């Protein structure tokens, strides 16, 4: 049975030492191009966490009971589930979302981290409860990473002081690399 320590361990891993966007390069694009305000980032991040929870809650039984015979359909089915879940959520939460970030929730929520997480969970044969906790942890991790990254890039990086060739994406990559390095230290 899951102990409290294990749950805490999964949550901390998702948030820090096993961070998807920074250390596993899943959903990195979504984080890198994020220039939204902290408030928007939090809403988008929470929305993505919700998407992760729901899709994993659906994908796990699908994979366990239906896809055993046709493993090659796995990616297609997972993406189909993600697409439908995101569209339905979008309809339900249209009002709330539009106030903050217009329509880009749909584009944002469909990123490598969501699909990568579904695949990761079934490949590591996690139990249903573990799957849900991992989804929560990874989703929150993505949200925190987005906020931190947008803030660090905005506040700590002075574009004027950087050599011209390093402006823009290169310095953003280096910034993300530095945060990744800090998180990597937690793995030792």
């Amino acid at each position: 049975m899951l102990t409290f320590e294990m749950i805490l361990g999964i949550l901390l891993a998702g948030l820090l030492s096993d961070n998807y966007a920074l250390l596993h390069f899943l959903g990195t694009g979504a984080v890198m191009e994020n220039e939204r305000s902290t408030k928007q980032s939090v809403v988008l991040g929470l929305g993505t966490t919700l998407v992760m929870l729901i899709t994993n809650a659906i994908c796990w039984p699908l994979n366990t009971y239906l896809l055993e015979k046709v493993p090659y359909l796995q990616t297609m089915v997972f993406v189909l589930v993600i697409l439908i879940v995101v569209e339905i959520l979008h309809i339900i939460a249209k009002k709330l979302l539009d106030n903050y970030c217009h329509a880009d929730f749909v584009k944002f929520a469909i990123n490598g981290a969501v699909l990568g997480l579904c695949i990761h969970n079934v490949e590591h044969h996690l139990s249903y409860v573990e799957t849900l906790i991992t989804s929560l942890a990874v989703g929150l991790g993505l949200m925190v990473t987005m906020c931190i990254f947008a803030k660090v890039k905005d506040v700590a990086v002075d574009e004027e002081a950087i050599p011209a060739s390093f402006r823009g994406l290169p310095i953003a990559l280096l910034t993300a690399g530095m945060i990744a390095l800090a998180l990597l230290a937690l793995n030792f």
Partner: protein
Amino acid sequence: MNIKHLLKTIAILLAIVAVFGVAMFGLNFLTGPIIAENNKGAEFAPLLAVMPDAENFEEVTSTLADIPESVIAVYKETSGKGFVVRAKASTQYSKEPMELTFGVTADGKICGIQLDVYTDSIDFRTKDANYITSFLEKDSALADIGTVSGATYSSTAFKDAVSAGFSALISNQLIAEGVKSDSQILAEMIPTLAPGMLKLEDAAVSGNIEKAWKSGNDAGFAYVIKSGEASYLALVNATGACLVYDVAGADVTVAQTAVADEAKAHAAAAQKSYVDALTTKVTRLYASAAEITSIEINTFNTVVAAVSFKVDGAEYYGFYSRSIGFHQMDVYFVIDANGAIAKMDANQFIFDKEYFHGFAGMDDAAYKAGFEGLTTDTWNGDAAVIATATMTSNAVKQSTDDVFATFNAIKGGAQ
């Protein structure tokens, strides 16, 4: 987007899934078998490394009886080329058990061998780069495979793991047992007949001596000596006593005096004497010790010197035992005429305090005093225990056992 749009979208999506699903279903007829083959290949990759010409493997571990604990799995090559065994072994130096894989051909010879996991603090591969490859082409007798000097425990464990794998195959009649040479049979008798000769190292040979071993703790020498058609095992202890055994394990010392003399002569030239060191120790323990006489002992354990002496007319016996714990140990015992320990001492118990995490320190004086008064009957090993220092404790225990055995041998001989 509203509900109606959503439903339409889902309908289109399902259509796309259907189209691609059909395409992939068709493609699966082409790729499915190849992927299955690939997955199998990945599972058997370490097995193929030791048996490159194998076609396919099948795990047969569960069908075998009496598998030694160190054997992890046994695989059968399906076209009958042989077997692959995965085994593990550990020593006191292993952080984790070492794991090895080796292939055995149908005629019982090793065709490939490799170490998969190795975490021992001393790496026998750097001490002897050819040790592992020396197993190639060998049968279950593992003839001429010794140990790696400087990594005796690890290399012995490795060899034992291979032997265990062979015995699993042999006891299940999968391969025939290899025939051991006389010299090998004799060499394998050494640990039983002379348990005190630890860390055997190869020594120079001469004359009829085919093989010679020097014990690392200076407890004596072992020889395989040829006499006529037959080979004999000659053991010489630290005080020069010699025993000769034939291949059947029978004591033939009386009949083979020539063999015994050759062994004694060879040993006398190289054996370090510990009588002087013991004499010095005795005079330090008993200032008034007199008539200190060296005794030739006829046991083959870790006792390297023995003396008798008198203190105020009372008779005492002093013993010097060299057992091996974490390091070489030098342990001294004085036993009175009634067989009770009068004094116990050692050069040093804990050589490297940092090694023992959580070693709380020990009261040497109290520890030594704990032995006083013990006799063969009351000694049960408890007095030797040092908390968190198992290897040192075991060495002291062995020394105590050996000293009592030697004392009893001397007393028995005197009566």
